[in-house]
């Protein structure tokens, strides 16, 4: 850059401006930090816990997507709308407390209930979710290479037979006011269910081993150099389509999942903007799919309200429900800046995972969410599972369907 040398005009202007400013605006001063602040005091109820230590209070500004932390239960933040969370050790074990949607307009006190962090019940978890698809070298979208990686996070060999892959019926970026009909503490509403076949001992998975479930189990690199070879996937889901314009590809060498239900009559494409949560579930022992679909109480019509500036309108919807106690693992998904609500119970997953700030973000292709590794014990990987996907996952990593392959 060229040095800025002031010429005669400029020097004269400085002189005149300075004189006039002194006369006209004697208190001219630049101010920048003007945001009002308020003090939030947290009252933490930790029943059955005698000693709390290593405390960290985090206030997440929902509007500005900023976090403020303090090591005490008092924090000063700009006025706004916050999610509060407390991470601490209670009697030596990890405890958490969450409070969503706290309006901070002036100094206030907030009561929160702490509970022990689940340490994982030794079961299958969703280890990597790749829903965005890839971009071809020609700059086109490619969507047939989506996949899910399931992982045996238990200390024992488990059977994957009967595990059901679920997609949420509700959208994390479009909130409904369910009011008194809020079922999320009991059920998870689904729009797709695909089950791993087997007689109970067909597909056994050792601790630290993974299962790869692909949309199309084929070598995608032949058509798209930016994609993956998924021809060695363990399973694929295959849909018989009612539309000749949208048909599925079946690899006869790879086992198909049992299709229990899908909202579409064509082919299931997991929500490619990451607005839908995914879960794993099992039917209770002895319950068949036919019995499930014959259970009226699990196909529920519920009312909700749509609030607009023109008024509030009642609407209704009907979804298949999976009781929460059948859920093996849950991963809420939502773009980080368009998240509106958790579509599952916060006891199943208190957070959410994402690959991009927005659903239509052009950089989301080729990215996945991947569960963090908690430890490697005797050569066996153990993944983090605290039922909070925001903590448990790495966001927007380069997708690798074989990352967890030993």
């Amino acid at each position, binding site marked *: 850059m060229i040095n800025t040398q002031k010429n005669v005009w400029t020097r004269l202007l400085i002189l005149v401006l300075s004189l006039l*400013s002194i006369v006209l605006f004697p208190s001219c001063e630049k101010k920048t930090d003007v945001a009002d602040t308020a003090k939030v005091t947290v009252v933490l109820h930790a029943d059955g816990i005698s000693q709390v230590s290593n405390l960290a209070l985090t206030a997440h500004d929902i509007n500005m997507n*900023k976090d403020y932390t303090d090591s005490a239960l008092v924090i000063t933040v700009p006025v706004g709308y916050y999610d509060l969370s407390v991470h601490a050790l209670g009697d030596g074990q990890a405890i958490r407390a969450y409070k969503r949607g706290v309006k901070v307009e002036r100094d206030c006190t907030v009561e929160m209930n702490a509970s022990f962090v689940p340490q994982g019940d030794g079961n299958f978890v969703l280890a990597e979710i790749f829903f965005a698809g890839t971009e071809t070298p020609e700059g086109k979208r490619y969507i047939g290479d989506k996949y899910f990686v399931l992982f045996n996070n238990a200390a024992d060999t488990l059977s994957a037979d009967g595990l059901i892959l679920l997609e949420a019926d509700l959208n994390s970026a479009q909130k409904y006011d369910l009011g008194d009909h809020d079922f999320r503490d009991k059920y998870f509403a689904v729009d797709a269910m695909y089950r791993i076949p087997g007689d109970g001992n067909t597909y056994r998975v050792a601790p630290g081993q993974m299962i790869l479930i692909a949309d199309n189990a084929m070598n995608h690199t032949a058509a798209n150099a930016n994609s993956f070879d998924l021809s060695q996937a363990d399973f694929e889901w295959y849909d018989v389509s009612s539309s000749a314009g949208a048909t599925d590809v079946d690899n006869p060498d790879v086992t198909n999942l049992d299709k229990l239900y899908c909202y579409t009559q064509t082919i299931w494409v997991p929500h490619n903007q990451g607005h839908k949560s995914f879960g794993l579930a099992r039917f209770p022992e002895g319950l068949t799919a036919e019995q499930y679909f014959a259970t009226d109480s699990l196909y529920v019509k519920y009312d909700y309200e749509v609030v607009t500036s023109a008024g509030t309108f009642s609407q209704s919807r009907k979804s298949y429900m999976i009781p929460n106690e059948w859920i093996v693992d849950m991963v809420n998904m939502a773009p980080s800046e368009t998240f509106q609500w958790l579509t599952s119970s916060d006891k199943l997953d208190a957070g959410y995972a994402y690959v991009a700030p*927005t659903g239509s973000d052009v950089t989301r292709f080729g990215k996945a969410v991947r569960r963090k590794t908690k430890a490697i014990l005797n050569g066996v990987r153990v993944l983090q599972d605290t039922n909070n996907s925001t903590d448990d996952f790495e966001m927007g990593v380069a997708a690798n369907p074989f990352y967890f392959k030993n």
Partner: protein
Amino acid sequence: MLTTILVILTALVTDTARTDLFLSGQFGQGTQVLEGRQTGGFEVKAQSVYDINPVSRVFGEASYTWQDCEQTRGVDNADYRLTAPYWTMDTIGGDLRREIYYFRGGYRMLKNHILWHAALQFRAEQSYRMRDPRAKNKVSDLRVEASIGYQWNRYAFSLMAYGGRYKQNNEIRFYSELGETTIYHMVNDDEPYARFSSNNKVSYYSGYRAGGALQLLPTTGFMAGIQYDWFTFTKELTINTQVPIVRLNSHTLSAQFGYVSQRWRVHATAGMELKRGEQYIYGDNANNYYQLLLVTQNYSKNYLFGNLYGDYRLNLPLGDMLFVGKANYDQFLQHWSEQVQIRYTFPIKNRYSWFVAPQACLHQYDHAQAWQIILATGLTF
């Protein structure tokens, strides 16, 4: 600003009736990052002052401006100085074209020492980009003004008031099948409204303006003036319904002092702008209906600005030359500029004259400088 007011009022008192028709071309480096690396364009303009009779005068002005700014970065808005800091921004930028239509017309009466005028002014602008992100801004800026004054000997004392309505529609589209980049709606100099960043690509600035000025104007002699200007706008996002996210109040006070003679004129202006901004804080939303929780002040800054102006008219055996020098300072943009213009007017036939007016501008910033050349030519009669 006050310089504009001076031009308006001077036209009421000192200028002689005449008409200018001219075409000007502009080329040079972008005057700052927001305006791109290089800019060029042209303007076609007609302006006229016509005396109906010794007491009545009408005046009018119309212009069309086309400008192409290459590689603008960051800000997608038109009128970025006016809407700062509440801009719509992206991380890609690109070439931005501007088309400005400007009209102004008014009437002045001077009778029994009483001087008054009324005028209407309208600017329509569209700026757009033809590659993703395809920003498209449409601006309408209407102003109505009136003044009343008293003329005594060679001085006129005027009190002027005005009001206006400002609108800017800002829309960004992406044609790429792959998706979009994040659009940021700024709520501070370096901070976007994170909750509404992303795919909220349509925004609307709804503004109002009002102000007044006191001015002492000479035909020859000392001049002085003071002006207050208030401008406010609310920025709303279109998300099913209109969701206001910020509101800005801008108060500008400026003063001017100078001297006018038959052959030359100098004046200096200094002022300060106080920008005060508020952010709308929202709670939960359902179906994109956001619950407004509170409005909090989030922005407060003061800026100084000023300028010096001088001109000198030299009569030649054939025609005349006008030498103009200007210097400006704007603390907000950290911007200094100096302009030099020479206008040579050459009589053609009867009352018709041809003029040519080259102008050079040097813009200086803390770490950069840029030059621009403007060449204007036309007829005056």
